[in-house]
């Protein structure tokens, strides 16, 4: 029997690992008060991304802080549900009991983009938003050795060379793509979209001089801005701190599609439970620790309460619909 102990240990380890994946530590804390009605057991947070990915890290940071504000010493349990670009996780949320024990950490693409594409069974108002969290503002990056030094010169260059300026995004219908398409349409620019798997692949291609620009989130760009190899020429927000860049606000253009993250509960969750969850997350969102975290990933905090968050989702949904129609991706 001694011989198979090793094998058995292996088997047990696999079980432990699979059981532990998504486990969050339950902080020991003292609540002297009596038992509240909610929550009485750990709350599952569906995360439609791979463990270790960027949004997964954000979800883990936020829930870890929010846990301290839950009554009854309860905790959040992260469950990574990948697949279908998030459709599987969000469908699971929609079908979950609206008792507050299943929620999800979703993003703009789940509620404002996917419903347009026809594969999802849910739409922009199928969920109850709990709180809007943060959003990084995309940047259009170019090389510092490019033949244009600032936004105005870039416009001139693009107008003089129609169809020549190629830029990286993460694919048609992606947030980076929709933002660039919207601006190109307003300014009547003829530019060429090239799809990459992610922001850093686009940056690599740009550094290697294979393409002329890249629309990426600031976390992918910052290091290269400071190293002086790349610079932003346009910021897809209302203002910009970069010298050679212009923003939507500078050109008096309306807001683009914001890459926000948001917490969702199933529709029909009781007011009291929604309130407890909202308060726990809001307190975490406003903590110094979380502010530091959002700063470290170069995102901006955009707190909205459940009601305003839904308004934000609906507006974004309508805007994305228009843009996708222009792109010819939907009828």
């Amino acid at each position, binding site marked *: 029997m001694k011989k198979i102990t090793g094998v058995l240990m292996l088997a047990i380890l696999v079980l432990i690992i699979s059981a*532990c*994946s998504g486990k969050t530590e339950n902080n020991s804390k003292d609540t002297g008060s009596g038992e509240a009605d909610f929550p009485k057991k750990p709350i599952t947070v569906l995360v439609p991304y791979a463990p270790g990915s960027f949004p997964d890290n954000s979800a883990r940071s936020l829930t870890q802080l929010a846990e301290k504000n839950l009554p009854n010493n309860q905790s959040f349990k992260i469950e990574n549900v990948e697949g279908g670009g998030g459709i599987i996780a969000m469908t699971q949320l929609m079908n979950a009991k609206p008792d507050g024990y299943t929620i999800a950490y979703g993003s703009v693409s789940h509620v404002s983009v996917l419903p347009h594409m026809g594969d999802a069974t849910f739409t922009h108002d199928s969920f109850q938003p709990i709180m809007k969290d943060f959003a990084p503002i995309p940047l259009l990056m170019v090389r510092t050795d490019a033949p244009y030094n600032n936004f105005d010169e870039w416009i001139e260059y693009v107008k003089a060379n129609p169809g020549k300026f190629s830029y990286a995004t993460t694919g048609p219908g992606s947030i980076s793509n929709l933002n660039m398409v919207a601006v190109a349409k307003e300014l009547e620019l003829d530019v060429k979209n090239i799809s990459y798997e992610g922001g850093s692949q686009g940056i690599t291609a740009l*550094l290697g001089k294979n393409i002329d620009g890249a629309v990426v989130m600031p976390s992918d760009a910052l290091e290269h801005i400071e190293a002086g190899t790349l610079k932003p020429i346009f910021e897809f927000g209302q203002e910009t701190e970069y010298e050679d860049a212009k923003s939507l606000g500078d050109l008096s253009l309306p807001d683009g599609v914001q890459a926000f993250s948001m917490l969702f509960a199933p529709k029909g969750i009781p007011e009291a439970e929604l309130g407890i969850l909202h308060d726990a997350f809001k307190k975490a969102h406003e903590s110094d620790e979380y502010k530091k975290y959002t700063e470290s990933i170069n995102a901006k905090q955009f707190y909205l309460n459940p009601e305003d968050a839904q308004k934000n989702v609906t507006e974004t949904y309508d805007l994305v619909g228009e843009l996708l129609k222009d792109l010819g991706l939907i009828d």
Partner: protein
Amino acid sequence: MSFLDFDFTTLFTLSNLIAIFLGTIVGLIIGALPGLGATMAVIFLLPFTYTMDPVSAVLLLLAAYQAAEYGGSISAITLGIPGTPAAVATAQDGIPLARKESPGKALGISLNASVIGGVVGALCLIFFTEPFANFALRLSDPEFFLLGVMGLIAVASISTKGEMTKSLISVVLGLMVGTIGMDMFTGQPRFIMGQLELMEGLGIVALLIGIFAIPEILRVVKDDLHTQFASQASNLSTKLTGKDMKRIAKPTGVGSIIGTISGLLPGLGTVAAAWFSYIAAKKISKSPETFGKGNPEGIAAPESANNASVGGALIPLFALGIPGSVGIAVVMSAFIVHGIQPGPRIFTKDPTLTYGILYGFLLTTVALYIVGRLLTPLFARVLVVPNSFLMPIVYVIAIVGGFSATSRYFDIWLSLILGLISLLFVLSRFSIAAFVMAFVLSPVIEVGLRRSLLISGGSYSIFLTRPFSLLFLIIIILMLMTPVFRKLGERRKRNKLISN
């Protein structure tokens, strides 16, 4: 500060050493479990690093990454289940050598080759970060496309004699299965048959479990279950003789170099590294006909390559702030949590920390050797277990491992269905290795070609005007012409004989 001025006392602290050894042990075990390769090992350890000091945190993850790349070969060699796509190459010769000769020897070769590969990768990272990173930037879609095509042509050399047609069918099937999922250029789903789980393509872990583990288990069950793979415990020693070491020197060297370079290129990764070096080792070997039948060189090459690729994948991270693989991207998030931004300025901004990590990374290979020597014999013992006990356990481990990679029941069904289909293919002698290689290369080739043509506006001249692209094109032509030249040469020789 240059790499020579580094104060080594800051590296040899208790917490750093504990982190390295702990990471190595955990990485080795997780890597050895089918379905949970290097990326899972790093993800598993990531939450523990948040409270550690930055150097220890990063070294813990890198040690685990390094050890898991070796660990992947353990399940391939002992259980016949390659847990990672890279280990499929190792399994080609690892399984026959372990079963026919000695599992200890097969694992010993894998360990030594892994350590040497790891050292080469780490040295390249320490000394040649900048030139390598600049080289990596010059390779892009046209070159990736041609490298992918090169890999497909090379599949011919891993197919058994007389089965070329079946190998080619395997390649075509692999290429087709590789297109399942969302087309990234149009956003349209392809061949998903209404299954949203297939939107991101067939999961590689589910696929590997399905096409390797399940047919393997069924095949063993079909034969005599009351035997065991290795009968003598004396065969379990991982000690290698000087003769063995000499024999694997050349393939290990080749594997280390190919591994480091493939690690640099985010599109290719460890899979291509392992296969390219396996094929290269076969080409330069004195006895290429024994490849696939338990040749130690066929273990040394891919194993050194996948460990060398770890150092290779770190080069773009340090030089450009771009992670070279998914696992390294997770390591990068540990950097960021500790407020360090990897990238060109890391050497000047934080030299003590950066060189601490670089030298510490070299130290992980030492830890790998020590821990590997201690733990590997335990793993080798698995083959002494009678098959009637071993196979049910392997089956459970395979299924649980496949499930824990994605936590989706869908993937379990996928594995089981693929397992039955591939059993038919195995029984009719189709090449499963050729299928996997084509499956892995399929997106590299497709995306490379389509993106190249998008950038060039549809003109094929993009493949001729870039220096490396042109070089690869010439190599491909030479690869295709070699058999023709050889045949012509033979005919001339024969004609000469006749005329004499």
